[in-house]
């Protein structure tokens, strides 16, 4: 009781200031989540505007005698003539480890019914990205657990890798798989010296609530939520909240980076984000450009994605890796928003509908996917076994197109086609089942060393799964060696030879 009395007293004494000066304005027009306010002569760009009843707005358009303001909540209580005032503050969200395991809205308020969030700090939603001096090149891997990606399109901590593809091609699945894999790695290595956990943030923009609930259920079932924050601005949310959600997520990720930790952030998806921003801009009567998007839609995404970085030791050695998602229409990557985001990011994973329906899942198109960070973000062992795979596969695709016309093939071409068909099989992977790096390395080693060559193509998957099971259950020592050393040396080669040889002789 005494503590509440003290609290009240301190609050009352805080109110003893004689006169408060504020800058006010009068709402002249309100509708569609946008208010036009007369007055507010001292307002600053992006400043929070206080409306009566605890509602806030964001000043986005500063005009000669009016201010265009977007509302961060329900506008029902606001009427023409309502007095509003400036706050001198920027929009901020709670950040920190208290958010892990929670589902929050754009403003960082919990929406999962698990009670209030304890956060140690707040961060402004809009923040300038780290400059050149603070940065360091990307060199540590983010293991997605998806063999096709880890082997051919490696992602590094601090990189921005776009996931692009038509609707229902498995874009979100790749992101969710990656989050699950991070949780597995974090759990397995918890407490180990020198281990850097990777925390995940999933930002759902304009998604159906059912989709968010499904992703949440998958993450919970996989035990990934203790390392994950979900920020959601579903389709039923206002355009304002959808526009601000990725920035809130970026602020939460930046806290990890500033405190020397690593974070992974998934923006699902930026096409809907651009649409929400277009809506806000049109309502604010900003001039529209191509496809009615405002002129600064490129800056919108570039300033967001620039906030992903790897900072150097003097600045905490943390990182924020971004996996933005873009949904294309009928595979058109040359549309406005896709080309914008492709040019901003450090590479893209392109998912093709055709491959998806051929049963090649994840439907990664090897030809169009690229990681501009390259093998700098791969462990040595993976580089040793996966170095030539992308080339082999590209050659296979080229030859496969030719081979359809001719029947007589020389032995070399036939060998290449056989190898390619097997690699394609090898990279098929069921969803929500990421593979450990050492298992990937061992499997690819077996492929490179011709252990798969005499397995019929339709048996490759079965052979692979059984081999993986054999290795994890019976030959864990070899996998542990690969895990610890991170490379394949003569000793490990000998072990792998005997292990895979033993398995092959018993396989039927």
């Amino acid at each position: 009781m005494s503590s509440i009395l003290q609290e009240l007293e301190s609050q009352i004494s805080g109110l003893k200031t004689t006169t408060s000066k504020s800058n006010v304005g009068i709402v002249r027009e309100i509708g569609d989540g946008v208010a036009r306010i007369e007055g507010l002569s001292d307002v600053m760009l992006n400043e929070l505007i206080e409306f009566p009843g605890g509602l806030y707005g964001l000043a986005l358009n500063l005009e000669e005698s009016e201010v265009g303001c977007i509302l961060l909540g329900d506008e029902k209580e606001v009427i023409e003539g309502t007095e509003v005032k400036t706050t001198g503050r920027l929009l901020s969200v709670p950040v920190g480890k208290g958010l892990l395991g929670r589902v929050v809205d754009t403003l960082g308020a919990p929406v999962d019914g698990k009670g209030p969030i304890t956060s140690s700090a707040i961060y402004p939603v809009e923040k300038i990205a780290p400059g050149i001096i603070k940065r360091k090149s990307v060199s540590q891997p983010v293991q997605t657990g998806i063999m096709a990606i880890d082997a051919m399109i490696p992602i590094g901590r601090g990189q921005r890798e776009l996931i692009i593809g038509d609707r229902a091609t498995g874009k979100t699945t790749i992101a969710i798989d990656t989050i699950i894999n991070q949780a597995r790695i974090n759990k397995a290595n918890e407490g180990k010296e020198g281990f850097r956990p990777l925390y995940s943030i999933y930002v759902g923009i304009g998604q159906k609530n059912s989709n968010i609930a499904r992703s949440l259920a998958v993450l919970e079932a996989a035990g990934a939520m203790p390392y994950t924050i979900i920020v959601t601005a579903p389709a039923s949310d206002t355009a304002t909240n959808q526009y601000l959600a990725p920035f809130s997520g970026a602020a939460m990720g930046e806290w990890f980076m500033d405190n020397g930790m690593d974070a992974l952030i998934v923006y699902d998806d930026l096409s809907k984000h651009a649409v929400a921003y277009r809506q806000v801009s049109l309502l604010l009567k900003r001039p529209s450009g191509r496809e009615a998007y405002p002129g600064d839609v490129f800056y919108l995404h570039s300033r967001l994605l620039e906030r992903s970085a790897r900072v150097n030791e003097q600045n905490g050695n943390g990182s924020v890796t971004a996996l933005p998602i873009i949904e294309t229409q009928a595979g058109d990557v040359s549309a406005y928003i896709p080309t914008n985001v492709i040019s901003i990011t450090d590479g893209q994973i392109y998912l093709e509908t055709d491959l998806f329906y051929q049963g090649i899942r994840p439907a990664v198109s090897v030809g169009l996917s690229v990681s501009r960070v390259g093998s700098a973000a791969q462990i040595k062992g993976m580089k040793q076994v996966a170095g030539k795979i992308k080339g082999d596969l590209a050659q296979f695709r080229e030859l496969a197109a030719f081979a359809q016309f001719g029947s007589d093939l020389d032995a070399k071409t036939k060998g290449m086609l056989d190898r390619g068909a097997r690699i394609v099989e090898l990279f098929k992977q069921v969803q929500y089942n990421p593979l450990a790096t050492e298992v990937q390395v061992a499997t690819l080693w077996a492929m490179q060393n011709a252990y798969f060559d005499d397995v019929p193509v339709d048996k490759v998957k079965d052979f692979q799964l059984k081999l993986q099971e054999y290795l994890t259950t019976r030959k864990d020592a070899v996998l542990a060696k690969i895990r610890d050393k991170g490379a394949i040396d003569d000793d490990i080669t000998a072990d792998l030879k005997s292990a895979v040889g033993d398995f092959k002789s018993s396989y039927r």
Partner: protein
Amino acid sequence: MKLDKDSRKLSKQLFQASFTDGKLDEGKVRIIAKKIADSKPRNFVGILKDFQRQVRLDVEKHHAVIESAQPLDDAMSKQVVDGLKAKYGPSISSEFKVTPDLIGGLRIKIGSDVFDSSVRSRLDRLETNLLHA
């Protein structure tokens, strides 16, 4: 009603022409308003409305509304007005209002600046602090 670009431009020009030595000239405002009403250019109602809005905003910038819970005595009123003139210049006009809702203290609004020392605003702040803290 939305005003078209040309009318808005015209009303702005007329407003800029209503100044003498940096101060809004009442005489000029009257003449301009009368001229518009007489000559009736295209969309003249809209132009007049926009012109009136700009004049109103400028007048509000130099006009102080002093609200108190009870009528202020002359000495106090003079002190308040002098204080405002010292801060905002001698051309400030003022208006006194009695608003019992304030409970006590003063609330002065000049342009978009508000100085509030009323009991009402303190209670409101207390309410916000207790509800949203």
